[in-house]
């Protein structure tokens, strides 16, 4: 592969410059406006696909803005800073990323300023027998190989250049401990580390995903956290989950478990340069937690954040 590895590898622990935002939350239009003020949160994380509809044309798929919800989301965010977190890029698909996602991001870049852009380190399409892209139905984690690290690093670096803001990769939750791996990469931790070192991009450290994988693969979450190069982490996700068939799932269905709060405390203590923490919950489960429950989770995250960012608190 014609990709210059040496320049990036020279500075493997260098943090991506992204600025410090604080505690963020997704844009849930079902929740009251009152939650989306600087009194409650510091920034909003937008999953752009929610405000776009996919349409099939002869040449493929286009993601077109659903104007009413897109405009409502923009109004909802007001003057709060925004980050973008897409879910359809499939950055790990060998035959190519999902180009309509990039086209959507290209358009967004011109009309909605965002501080950084993140995606998941996974794939959700393969090629079928006729050479057409076929969906896998659920996202799959990537083999920890040299080839994968170089492919993803090249793509991630190009995305970071394309949008002129930090590009972050999120560690995924999954249930497959026995994926193929090259000895020099080792495992998913080694894969992420290698990609970030090669690309100069940052990590979105999803602590709930880390917690899920630790439980399901029999690891100690704090030991797993020790495998992360925190100097590369720009953003953290926290969320709730639930058990099914003996597996702990990244269900985004409620309150953050105590163990994940502890991991957040531990992470921010060791890496105060991290730019933001986002609490995630699916729309489907909002009613159960309620606006007050959401506000409680955000307040708890902010309390921990401020403990490690006294300057930001004084500024606020």
């Amino acid at each position, binding site marked *: 592969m014609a990709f210059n590895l040496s320049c990036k590898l020279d500075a493997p622990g260098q943090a991506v410059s992204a600025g410090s935002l604080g505690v963020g939350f997704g844009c849930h239009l079902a929740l009251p406006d009152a939650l989306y003020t600087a009194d409650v949160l510091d920034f909003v994380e937008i999953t752009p*696909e929610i405000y776009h*509809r*996919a*349409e*099939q044309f002869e040449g493929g*798929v286009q993601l*077109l803005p659903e104007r009413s919800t897109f405009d409502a989301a923009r109004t909802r965010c007001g003057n709060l800073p925004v980050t973008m977190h897409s879910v*359809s890029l499939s950055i*790990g*698909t*060998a*035959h190519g990323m999902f180009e309509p996602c990039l086209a959507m991001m290209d358009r967004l870049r011109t009309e909605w300023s965002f501080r950084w852009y993140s995606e998941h380190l996974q*794939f*959700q399409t*393969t*090629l*079928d*027998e006729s050479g057409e892209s*076929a*969906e*896998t*139905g*659920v996202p*799959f984690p*990537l*083999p920890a*190989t040299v*080839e*994968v690290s170089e*492919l993803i690093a090249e793509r991630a670096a190009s995305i970071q250049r394309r949008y002129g803001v930090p590009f972050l990769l999120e560690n995924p939750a*999954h*249930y*497959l*401990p*026995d*994926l*193929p*791996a*090259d000895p020099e990469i080792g495992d998913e931790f080694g894969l992420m580390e290698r990609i970030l070192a090669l690309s100069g991009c940052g990590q979105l450290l999803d602590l709930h995903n880390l917690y899920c994988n630790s439980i*399901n693969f029999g690891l100690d979450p704090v030991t797993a956290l020790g495998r992360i190069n925190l100097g590369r982490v720009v953003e953290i996700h926290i969320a709730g989950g639930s058990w*099914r*068939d*003996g*597996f702990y*799932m990244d269900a985004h269905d409620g309150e953050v478990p105590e163990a994940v709060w502890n991991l957040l405390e531990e992470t921010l203590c060791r890496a105060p340069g991290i730019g933001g923490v986002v609490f995630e919950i699916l729309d489907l489960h909002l009613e159960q937690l309620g606006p007050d429950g959401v506000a409680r989770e955000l307040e708890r995250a902010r309390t921990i954040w401020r403990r490690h960012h006294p300057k930001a608190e004084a500024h606020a």
Partner: protein
Amino acid sequence: MTESLAAFQSRLGRALRGQATCPINPDSQGYRFTMTVRRSWCEQRSIIAARAILKLTPDGGKSLVQEYVDHGGGLAWFQAIESEKFLSFLSSRLPDPSHALAICRMSQALAHARRGSSIFKPPDLRVARGPIVHGSHAALVWLYSDPGTVMAAMNAGHLPPLGPPSHAVLFAPGIPALFREATELEVMLWNTLAITEAPPTLVDDLLREGVLMYRPDGSC
């Protein structure tokens, strides 16, 4: 040496379609659970696509969803694409005539008209451009009761008796709400495309709404 990413993904994709051995141990608990989650996601996408229609079928649509997913349905990442596929599947399985099939066809027609609305431009009626045909994103769907009654009855969980088709609904990208009830004259025009026998103002109105359009190639 590990196999290439392309080979790994190709093999995984074929295994997911039941056509090859899996590159991940298919007997592992983790893989089996991943398949359970995958199945659940596929079923949920299908149910979201047609919740109201499925409620009108004998077992709440469970067997239809199972059949669809068993044959590789429910995989689309985007709900709009999945909805289109599942509605197409349902339209070939629902009893004809039935309220469920009428609502399925309405859902398909509405999605089609919405898709057209992003590219639709009313024609310049000052320039006559040859033969007139059905709009490329238009449809006429028959209901067996007035639409308001059908919707209210769906919410209440019981439908009116199935009589003859009684209410025609037009769908087109230029109609402000994308659909409206059709008049008798419009139904006749839709069925026959006898343009020369219809009032010119009606034809013009239907062209502006995209219910009708000039044939793209202009030939007879």
